[in-house]
Every structure is written in C-alpha cells, then in structure tokens.
C-alpha cells in the first residue's frame, strides 16, 4: 500500500510525540526533534509496511514532509 502525505505526517508526528496538526509540510523537521535515530525507525517501518526504497541519506538530506513525499512514493 502506497504511503500518503497524511500517513507520513501521522507517522512523523507519532515518533516525535506531537499532534499531526502541529507538523507542517514545509518546515525542517529537525526543529521538531527529528533525528537520525527517528529517521531510521520511520524508514524501517515504511520499508516494512509500504515497500519504500528510499535510503537514509535521501530522507536526512532534506528533512521535510514536502521533500519526502516524492521519495516515498506519496506524490
């Protein structure tokens, strides 16, 4: 099942312990507490559940939902 932008937002919010509504699509998630460990955890989950093929560096390079969507097949 392909990822959606909303699912990305929900998962990111979940791992940051924030409300999805508080996670903007266009801002740097590092400012919201996203770190390499959390990216790895998200990536593992998405690989398992959504057959995502993006690598760690792809996500870490531009840590924002907007930038991730195409990489994660949630265009």
């Amino acid at each position, binding site marked *: 099942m392909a990822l959606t932008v909303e699912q990305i937002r929900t998962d990111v919010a979940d*791992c940051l*312990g924030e409300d999805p509504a508080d996670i903007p699509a266009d801002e*740097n998630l*590092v*400012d*919201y*507490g*996203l*770190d*390499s*460990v*959390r990216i*790895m*955890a998200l990536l593992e989950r998405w690989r398992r559940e959504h057959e995502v093929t993006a690598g*760690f*560096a792809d996500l*870490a*390079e*531009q*840590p924002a939902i907007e930038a991730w969507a195409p990489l994660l097949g949630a265009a």
Partner: protein
Amino acid sequence: MTAAVEAIPAVLPLTAAQSGMWFAQALDPLSPAQNTAECLEIDGPLDAALFAEALRRVTAEAEALRVRVEDTPDGPRQHLADHVEPPLTVRERATPAEAEAWMRADLAEPFDLAAGPLFRHALFRVGTDRWLWYQRIHHLVMDGYGYSLLVRRTAEVYTALARGEEPAPRSFGTLAELVEDDAAYRSSPAFAADRAHWSERFGDRPEAPRLAGRGALPSRTFLRRTAHLSPETTERLKDLAGRLRATWPDVLIAAQALYTARATARTDVVLGLPMMGRMGSVALRVPGMVMNVLPLRLTVDPGATFAELVRQVVLGIREVRRHQRYRYEDIRRDLGLLGESRALVGPLVNVMPFDYGVDFAGAPARARNLSAGPVDDLTVNIYDRADGRGLRIDHDGNPALYEGTGLAAHQERFLHLVDRLTGTDPHAPLAVHPVATPAERDLVTEEFNRTGRALPPTTLVGPIESRAARTPDATALVFRDTALTYAELNARANRLARHLQSLGARPGTVVAVSVPRSVELVVALLAVLKAGAAYLPLDPEYPAQRLAYMLGDAAPVCAVTDRADRLPADTGTEVVVLDGLDTSGYAWTDPARALTPAHPAYVIYTSGSTGRPKGVVVPHRAIDNRLRWMQAEYGLTPDDRVLQKTPSSFDVSVWEFFWPLREGAALVVAEPGGHKDPAYLARLIRERAVTTCHFVPSMLQVFLGAPEAAGCADVLRRVFCSGEALPRETAHAFARALPDVELHNLYGPTEAAVDVTYHACDPADAGPVPIGRPVWNTRLYVLDAALQPCPPGVPGELYLAGAQLADGYLGRPELNAARFVADPFGPAGTRMYRTGDLARWTADGEVEYLGRTDHQVKLRGQRIELGEIEAALAALPEVDAACALVREDRLVGYVTGGADPAGVRAALARELPEHMVPAAVVALDAFPLSPNGKLDRRALPAPVFAGASGARPFSSAREEALTGLFAEVLGAEGIGPDDAFFDLGGTSLLAVRLVGRVREAFGAELTIGSLFEAPTPAALAARLDAAAPASDDALGVVLPLRADGEGLPLFVIHPAGGLAWCYAGLAARLAGRPVYGLQARGLTGDEELPRTLREEAEDYAARIREVQPHGPYRLVGWSVGGVLAHTVAVLLQEAGERVELLALLDAFPSGQWRERPAPEEGDALTAVLRMAGFDRTGERTREDVLATLRAAGSPLAGLTDRTLSRIVDIVPNHARMMRAHEHRVYDGDVLFFTAAAPRAEDWLTRDAWRPYVTGRIDNLDLDCTHPQLMRDRYLDDIAAVLTARLKELDA
C-alpha cells in the same frame, strides 16, 4: 544534484571539524589516538582480488581517503591526490587470534599526516568461508557515519564485480563541498545565533561530572570493555522508549545521566553527545570527518521520575540539534574553558544506529568497531547492528583515569541500571534506583558491616569499680610526683561522689567539671560517673561567655571546680570548689545508684555551624561498646601506661581517662598545657614509660619533628591518631622515627562515642590513609543523593548507625531530627547519624575520608578540594606538612619543612591543573594549633602576593588580555603591561603554558622564542599586532634574554646541550641588566657542528663583539659553557680586549676530562633528559626520549623533532671536543661556583684551573648537584654573588 566533472582543487583548507583533529594530532604527532578502526566479519566465500579491486574503486570515489595534510605558513592544508593505491594486507590463512593480534598492533601505529595515505586495509581468511576485513582510518578524514557510507559502497561494488557487472555509478559528495559548506556556515547568521545559544546555556560554566573524580589529558590508547544488552532487555528498552514517546537512545542517555549524577554526587549533569552533524546537509553523501560533540545538560533530582528525565533528554536533544553545527571546541573556547584545560562534558554517550546490514555477493557481514577515536574521559559507545544479539555497549576509558576493574564496574552497574529501569514503573521517583549492583549493595551494607557482637549490659564506670576491687594496690594514676593506687583513687572518687549525690547528682542529671589537668580532674570525673550523673567537661580556658552559655544550656545540678573563681559568677549554678573541700566524712565505698547503660555518661559540646555550640549526650551503652571494642582490638595490660594529655572537653580524652582504669593499667597525666610542647611530651613519655598515647595528626607531625621524639621508640607501643585526616606522609614519618611502634588511625564524631572506624597503618602502604572498618556493633553507610548505597570507589556522604550513636543534642529536637535520621538499612525503627563527611568504600571494606560535604571551596567558579592540594604539597620532597585555604579569593598553600616556596609553586604547577596551584605559598616553621591540638587555620599568616605597582593603563584590549594571561599563568596579580615574564618568576615551563594560552586565546602562532624577545604583555601585543611570523630566534646563536637595560651586558654561554634557555632564571635575578645567551650553531639549520672548542669559541667571540664591540666584557658559563667562556675570554684578551668578569658555574677544564671515555649517543640521551630535569628510566632511543619529554610537557618537547635530534648530536660533539681542547692562560680572577653535593666524578677539582688562570679563584660552594645549580634556591645565591661583583665593577 550535478555530478559534472569539474576541475578539483588539489589543495583545500581544513574544515573546523578537521582542524580540531589536526590540532590534537599536532600536540602529540606520534600518538595513534586519532586512529579509528573497524572490523567486518564476513561469513561466506570472498574473492580477495575482486575485493582489492572494489577497494581501489571506492578509494577513487572517496576523496577523503586520498588526502594528506601538510602544515603551511597559512595553516594546515589538505592535499588531494588523483590516485592513491589503497594499502591492503591480505592473509589467506590466519587464525582469528593472529588476525586480532595483527589488528591490535596496526592500531597502535600512528599515521603520518603529511605523508599519507591516512587509511589502510587488511583482509584475513580465518576459516573456509569466513573473512575479516579490517580498516583503519585517521579520524581527521573519517567519522562513524563516513565508515557506513564506505562500507555500503564497498559491498555494493564488490557484489557487482562478483556478478561480472559494472557497479552502478555513485556520486559521493566532494571535500570541496564540505569545506564550502563549513565556510558558509561559519559566516552565516546561524553561526552567530548558535554561538549566542551555547554561551547563554553554559554561561555559568558548570563543572563537568567526572566519574574518576578528576580529569586527565587524553592518552595514546584507551581501555575498552564490551558487553551486550540482552535481546530481552533490548526489547524492553525499545518498548519503554515507545511508551515514553522517545527513542531507545534517549532512554539510554537518560540512564547514563542518572548513573553519572549518582556516581559523581551531582544533580547538574552535562553529558557529551557525539552527533553525526549531517542532517539536512550535503555532508550526508560525503564520507569524511563531520561529526561533532555537543553538551546535553540535565538536572537529575532524586525526587523526579525516570519518565520526566527521559522527557528532559528528548527536549534537551531537540534543543541541542537546533544548534548542532556549532563546534564543541568553539563552545569551550567561548566559555574560556580551553585555557583552563577544563572539560565541559562528563561521559560521552555515542549512539551509532547506522544501518550496517550489508552483504558481499550474498555473504553477510557484521561490523565491529575497534576504535572510535581518542577518549578524554569515558565514552559509552552503543551500537544497534540489528544482528539479534541485542545492543552492543562498549565502555571506552582513558587509561590515565580508569583501570580495567573500575571500567568494568561502571559498565556492569550501567547494564544493571538499564535492566532495572526497563523493568520498573517509569513514574516512580528516581530515588528507588540504586546505582550499585545487587551484589555491591549487599557488600557495602551487609558484608562490610558484619560487626555484631553480643556484650554484657555494663556502664562506663562499672568495670572501673570491679577493677579497683580486683587490683587495689596497682598504680592507677601518676601526675608529677603523685602516684595513686586504684584503692586510693577509688576511695577519693567515692567520697566526692557521695557529696555530689547529696547535691542532687544521680542518673539522668548532669554535673559540670571545670578543673585543669591534675589528679583532682580524674577524681572529679570519676566521682560524677560514680554518682550516676553525666559529666559535662568545661575547659577552664574557654571564654566566660561560652562557659556561661553551656552552663545555661545543660543546666547541671552543680559544677565542680578546683578554685572558686573558675567559672562565671552569675550563672546560678551551684559550684563545688575542691580547694578546701573536706569529703572525709563520706564513706569510701562505691556509692549506690540506679544507673543503666541507657543513662547518659557525658555531655560534650561541639561547635555548631550556626555558631551556637551544641551538647552531645552520649549514653553509657555507647561508650562502653567503644571501650570494650578497643580492649579487644588492642589488648591493654596492667603493665601499660596511657598518657592523658587531651583536654577533657575533647572526646578523645574519654578513652584516655577510662580505658586504662578499666583494664588495670596506669594513667600518666600530663601538665596542663603540656600537650602542646613536643619536647615535654617526649620527655614525659620516656621518663614515665608511657606505652600508649594519642595525637591529632597535625600535632603528631610537630611531635615527630622534635629531635626528642625518636627517644620514645623504646617505650611506646602504640599511638592513636584521630580528629583530622592522617596524611600518609605523616604516617611514613612516624614509621621512620618510631619504627617498632604501632600507628592506628581512628575516626569518629563525638555523636558516635569517639571513634567508629579503625585502621592500622602499615609503613609499606601508599596513598591516602583509610579511616578503616567499623568497630563492634557499628554500621557505616556511604550514601548518594537518593540515600542509596554507593558502591566501592564512589564518593558519598558517610552515615553511621549502631550501638555507639549518641542520644542526640541536648534540647535541640529539630537538629536531632535532621542529623539522627531513620535508617533504611538497619533493624526496624533504628537511626543513623549523618556525618557531613564525604567518603568512599575501598574494594576490601575500608572507608576513605575525602573531606567535608560542606567545606568545598570555589574559586572563579571552579570547585576545589583543598585536601587534594594539601596532599600534593605534602608529597613534595622537602615539605613536611601542608595545608591550603582560600584568602581574598586566592588559593594559598602553607608548608613546613625546608622547601623553597617558589620551587613548591613551580612543582605544583607541574602536577595540578592551573586553578589548583596556589597563588602563593608560605613557608612556616610550624603550624599554629588550636587548644585541642588541631590546626588553627585562622591563625595562619596572610601571604604577600607578587606584582608590580604603579602600572600604567592598558593601551589596547589585546595588551590587557595578554596581561591577564600573564597573571593567570604566573599566578600573580597586579601585573602591569611592562612587566617582564621572566622577571616575575616565569619559568620555561610556565613559558610553554603561556604560549599555549596565547595561541588559544588569539589563535596566533607564537614560539617560546617570541617570549624571550618580547617578554612583556606590551611587547607581545605589539608583536601579535604586527602579525610577525613565528620565528626560530630562540634557537639563534645570540639569544637576547634581556636586550634592554642599564650597564654592560652579561654574556652567558650554553651548557652541553647547546641551549641557553636555562639562564632565564639567572637573567630574571639580574634585574635591569642586559643579558645575552650564546647558543650552539646547528639547532635549526643544516649548519655543520664545530670541530673544535676553539672554533666554536672564536665564533662566539665574534658574535659577542657584534653586540658589544669592545670590552670590558663580562662572561658566565655553566658546565661546558664555562670551558667555552674561559676560551672566549682568552681569545678576547688576545685580541687586546679587557675581560673584567669570568664566572664559571661548576665547570672544569678539559684536561680533567681527557682520560675519561667520551659518552656515546646513549649518554647524550641521558643528558637531554637531564636538561629537562628527568632521570632516564626506560628510554632506549631518541624517539623514546622525545616521547618522554612530550608526555611530561617539557619545554624541550615544544622543539621540533629536528631540533631535539640535533641536541642529541650536539651533546656528544661537545664531549668529544672537550677532550681534545687545549686551554691557554686567562689573565685575571675567576669567580667560581661549585656544586658541592657528592658526585660520581669525584676527581673533578676547580684547582685544575690554576695553570690557566693568573689571578685568584674565588669559590662559593652550593649544596646541590651539578644539574640542580639552575634551580631557584641556588640561583638566588649565585645571583646575589654575581650582583655584588657586578656592582663593584660598575663603580
């Protein structure tokens, strides 16, 4: 992403991240500490040739691997090579052990940054289908994340090649991108904002929590303990993290914070977090060195919950991450910590979650880190390699701070703690978690406290009465010419007791006793006890106001005094005056009384922190336990004699008075005031055959210093110490003076019946003297801030429990409730006493006293344990005893013994961090003592701090800052911009430190030589302003030690090593005169060494004439320098010049040496070491010698290898030339200084100069060895004589 091929700049500056690594390596070029290494275990077939090809290709792709780093005048530069063949060692057959050994050996090899390559590989086949791939890379070019990029790419390329395919293209980012990115950041507003953030967050400069209790420079190696968190615990950890909406690293960081807080007794904890530093950056695709370490500051409060602590970590890391590009070194510099060599963070927690699930054409690989880089203190590396084994946890420790067992203990406790935390409600207070393991907890609370001993319910006085009945005719007491038998003493005390009973004395009441030391005092104390009352000793020397307070507070039924006017008149207490009191009407037999062990035996006042003395009420049970234990431990016999010299108001006197009387021994009572007179005490001990006595350690030190003390060796059997920490040096001095006498160290507060711990000193022991183990029926607890037991080695507050606890403070319920508190470890409903002393258990169950919890001093924000400074002072060779305190915000050291204060300061500067070196050291003949024999700190004299007066205002900020650095390094205040470093007592060692500080503060290159040339803050500022390049002038033939000044210059010629730096101290003492050093040619360049001394002397004569064209000349030389000075003098005279001063410092003419074999290179190495003040130990080669000098921070180590190496050539060349030299005759007088200590070369004599000197040879003997001549105390004498002579010549 453009991957277009562009011209790559072949030379790049370093990024800030790389610069830090470069600087660390430059400090110790031969250190392998910057090596990082990893080993991949590959399970499956591997084609070594294909693997080599894969490495070749990856090397071609990764620029960082192809650089070498050169130091240039503009700073270090990385040179990028187009092609580098990867160094690869392949072993097709190796056992795992052989492979490990090879890797270990390789890891100990330093890289040569300037030569490169800065990586190497090895491949071992350790089984049919099992390979080990080892790679070592210098940390300057690679970090942990970089490894993961390299490994993944290597696997990818190998796999493709193995399938016969061309690997997919890969575009690693370039180094140029990293450099650009770095430069862009450093000039961005974000950089300034980040700087402001860190400066604000750590503006109070918190102290780094140190598990070892101290810091150290990084070592060349590290200790590692590897463990795994079980898969189950790992699972629970991840589950707990999920429940707390955190990640598992957050939870582990919180666990480490909790451990660190408890193990260092702090609530404010700063951990170091190594960060990948690549989020949202091009660096994500660059294998290279980017990582950073950032401080995470946490508050660990025993009342908070673990969930709250984890939340703090999550939010804290989030904040850190927003400012993560700012470099750790920059934060420290901004905070001024660099200069003080102060750490900002305690342990590092390094979490490496990088995805390592790689395979090589289907053969799975598992990575194992071998070295993560230098370890300053302690680094906890945590790896999640997703291999089903749980998390791997490596504890890496700096071997200068940790031993294997200590590191293992930290790891084991951490694992236990993590296990507990993952199995406990995270909303419980942190206080429920001990940091000790269950086994340690059992050890320290139970095993070490197995002291239970059933005793009969007796009182302090009962056994004395039984003894008197059994041995009535034995001598009980001796004072002056009076001796009392047990029967006599008992009868007198009984009569007085009956009189006191008639005045209301009975069990549960108090009777004051204020009688100077005498027979009557003993009788009075005994009488009070016999009456059943508790005695309250009042020192007759106390001020009236204090006596009145105590009488009012304790409300005794009466007070016994020797004279009518002993006590203040208006207290309302009934006074029993012994003088003229007739008790003959009372019966002599033991009086009846309803006394039980629970009744109070005595009340002794101690000083209260609030200024109001507090009366400690000690019951019979407690002191009876104490005396029964003492008898069982030390076995007093009827032929023993115990000295009574402690004032009765001090509780040590309790055992002095009553222990001998319970055991049939005799009490020898000292004169009032006699306890302060060592000669009197020694005489008394000898004449009265005293076998047993007590000293407060500072008084023991005084006593041992008295020549009479050794005369007590034949009679004394045992000496007890208590009341203060017993310095090991005092224990050693005791063993020397009184070799067959036992020395016992006891410890205890008045609140626990005199003493609760004991330790027998062994002359063979070293280190701090423990206070020892608990006495009978006594339990000791060392507790942390959560009231949990500290494991051995971890400091905490000492609590006491058991039979000896006092009832409490008289009439102070709030104080009792706060000091005598519920005991969570002992029998139900019992109390423990909170001592306020800081202590720790040793591994074998003794306690070490570490100081007070409330007497720490802080100086400029730095916490200082005065005890540590005192120990360092006392450990110096010529210091007998020492103490340190803070005066006017400056640390002052006081010493007794023969040591020279300036020398002491310099020696301490060598051993202690700068802030712990006293600003002044005062030498005293003896320490002032208070009435009870303790050191009286308030009576210590104020020191005089150095520093010129009338300094002009600063002309620039840089001048002001430099002046501050001078003051800091010299430890003196009031320094002005025109004061010269060496005139203010600067040593060459301090010069190295100053140069280091200037480098850090201004980022300016500066050599020691610059300081000789520009010795004042003003001159140095001008020099820095002019941005003059660093010079080698300090190695030139003419070294201006003081170029300006009045009068004719003094020329001082180098000793065998060729450097004239050793004369800095002499120049400083010849204030106002120009002084020029002459140094050997060839220290810097490729110049040939001279072939003869005459050739060398001709050169110097010419150079001297360049400074001073015509005579009269003044020449000085030490050692070989003296031989040269004589020769130069002859040459100048032969040229028609006048030489008016030739001073030879322990220099002997060539003829004396001719028949002696010239030293080999080996001896030259010894000479180099001696120049630096070291004895040669294990150094075999030049490299070894250089390593020793560097390790010790010797100024010579600041020289380049090349120069040092030249010195090793210059020394034997001088020895050779000396033996060939022929002296001619010098026309004039010689001033000679002999190092008169016995020497191996006993054939040397200054008389050998006679044939070569027409005039007198005036000699001064100095009580030192040849190398010691340049030490401060001897230079003082030399300079005094020289100055007098120069003044005569001036006139």
